[in-house]
């Protein structure tokens, strides 16, 4: 299983990002190999539709689950279409801490958008 995490930098000790689609990096944790890999988020500078594009980036990375700060309506639709589940972390944690909280089942699953789109 692969778990994506929105990251502000490219190490497991980096803080989680405060935006989903505009996050600088996506961390991908592979639960079989126990490895972290970091990828530039190529959707972050999109003029419009970054939410859908960011989900596509995660889909191409074969992510099953993603840990996020907030999600807009288009990102939710796209996550559903890519069959990726999402869980919401709290700000101020590191990538590794957010991942541990997910495994400890402390993060709520996101079923609806938490913010309105078009900002």
């Amino acid at each position, binding site marked *: 299983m692969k778990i994506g995490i929105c990251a502000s930098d490219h190490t497991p000790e980096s803080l989680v990002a405060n935006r989903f689609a505009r996050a600088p990096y996506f961390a991908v944790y592979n639960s079989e190999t126990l490895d972290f890999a970091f990828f530039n988020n190529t*959707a972050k500078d999109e003029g419009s539709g*970054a939410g*859908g*594009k960011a*989900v*596509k980036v995660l889909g191409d990375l074969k992510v099953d689950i993603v840990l996020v700060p907030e999600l807009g309506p*288009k990102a939710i*639709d796209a996550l559903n*279409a890519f069959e990726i589940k999402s869980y919401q972390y709290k700000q101020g944690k590191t990538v590794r801490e957010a991942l541990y909280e997910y495994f400890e089942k402390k993060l709520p699953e996101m079923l609806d958008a938490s913010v309105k789109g078009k900002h």
Partner: protein
Amino acid sequence: MKIAILSGKGGTGKTTLSVNLFSSLNKVTLIDADVEEPNSHLFLKGNTYHEEDINKQYPVVDHDLCTLCGKCGEFCNFNAIIPAKKKVLVFDDLCHDCGGCKLVCPTNAISYTDKAIGKIFYQSVGDNKQFLYGRLTVGEVSGVRIIEYLKNVTKKEEVLLIDSPPGTSCSTVAAIEGSDYCIIAAEPTPFGLSDMRMVVELLREQKLDFGVVVNKSNLGNDDIYKYLEEEGIELLENIDFREEFAKIIARGELLVDHSEYVRNIMNSIIKKVLGETYA
């Protein structure tokens, strides 16, 4: 003769120039192509005799034909179509209606359907003048279709004024395309000059003739005049800022109905741009 009035920076007097030029001419049609926030109609108080819905088209995917190859998503610059795991997602509000996804689809799985994105309004002003304006629905991404429609239905007019959107975006390009002359409404402030430079660049790229009207000419500094001289750009007229003008405009009235000074300036612009016979 088609004359576009544009500015770069907002609030420099595009609409003031447009509606006062319109009122100074005997036979003329005006379109307000600033469909995101049209305002010429507030000054002209015409009589709406007809309105039409304007549609855009957006893609619909036939999932029996789609092979999820991903080409449509790679092509789309606006992330309006995203191939996912088992289906293709379409965000119709992001679609700019360019037609590209259908062209690149190898299995003909994409067709288009209509969606209303705004309206255009036809007004008569006085006895023999026509005014049209468009209004884009809030939330829609592009008014280009509406602007193209406005220009298409007025393409045979002898004298057409086009009150254009600010900036140098697709909407502005759509509004000024095919004009015989463009008038830049400028203001002598650092922001005004900076934004005007971008408009000059755009007009030169489009190979369109243009001149400048410096509005609020007694404010700011004279950098704009130095720039015009250096670049060899025609200065058509200056219009002073006066508190009474601001009050007249705030009441939704025309400067030419109140000020001989402005009437003379409008006539001078008309002579320079359209020739003696129209003044």
